[in-house]
């Protein structure tokens, strides 16, 4: 198991920030991280792994939200199509983040079941298409702000990808806000800050 994991840890992960090869203790920590459970409590060493894993958890929830929405029967077919496209964007985000966590020698956090997401998002209260769109808008706006708020805490290697993901979320906000007839914000710098 250990040998297998070691092989799975890419070379980049064996180098510390300064480019030095990790000590034996560091190596052991990496291997330990590989076998850790999905909970944050046992996650891999390294601040970035923790933060990127929280972002993966956020993307998992977003993906589930669009799956649940698409199957809710509350959306018109053309709206379902848009939702499925947006879900694909979030899947792409998840995949990039998973790659980053693995490259750092961490264990990407696993998704919960859609049933759990349905409960934690309280989808039982959604009665019509506008309700669903408002939930999606809230999550997307939150995600755009989350990525922007995260940047100063993240290692600089991940600033650009976080910015790019915030851009996608902002695009989703614009589409959903437009569909709901929300007024265009009058002031610039509408996210983060």
């Amino acid at each position: 198991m250990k040998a297998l994991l070691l092989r799975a840890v890419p070379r980049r992960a064996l180098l510390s920030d300064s480019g030095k090869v990790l000590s034996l203790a560091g190596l052991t920590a990496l291997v330990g991280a590989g076998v850790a459970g999905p909970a944050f409590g046992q996650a891999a060493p390294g601040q970035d792994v923790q933060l990127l894993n929280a972002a993966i958890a956020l993307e998992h929830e977003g993906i589930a939200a669009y799956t649940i929405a698409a199957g809710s029967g509350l959306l018109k077919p053309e709206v379902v199509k848009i939702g499925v496209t947006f879900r694909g964007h979030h899947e792409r985000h998840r995949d990039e983040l998973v790659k980053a966590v693995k490259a750092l020698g961490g264990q990407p956090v696993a998704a919960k079941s859609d049933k759990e997401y349905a409960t934690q998002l309280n989808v039982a209260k959604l009665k019509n298409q506008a309700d669903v769109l408002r939930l999606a808008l809230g999550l997307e706006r939150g995600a755009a702000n989350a990525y922007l708020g995260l940047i100063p805490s993240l290692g600089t290697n991940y600033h650009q990808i976080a910015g790019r993901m915030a851009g996608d979320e902002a695009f989703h906000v614009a589409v959903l806000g437009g569909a709901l007839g929300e007024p265009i914000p009058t002031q610039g710098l509408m996210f983060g800050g």
Partner: protein
Amino acid sequence: MSRSLMVAGALLSLMWGSQPVLAQESGDAERGATLYQQRCGACHSLDANRVGPKHRGVYGRQPASIPDFHYSTALRKLKEPWGDETLDRWLTNPTAMAPGTAMGIRVPQAQDRADIIAYLRSPAAR
């Protein structure tokens, strides 16, 4: 989001402009509720554990005390209860306060932090 809310927000920010210190001390829980939705709502709710732990009653509570949420060891090491000062430090820079935490979101504006904290302290979030 209604237009009247936006107008109210604009008026409020005008008022803050003239009395920044006073507003900062007390915080505006109503503006804080909106900010909470927008800045924290991707990960937190009052009544459900999501990416982050549920927040109802967090003001005055010991850190990492929701039993069914898997906190980082970093957060479990914090000793002081969540109050005005600790929450302000947390939202300014969580990874400085608890290195190794899973939450990295910073809220750089003091007024925004004060308003969010006022919301968490208000009956709506207790």
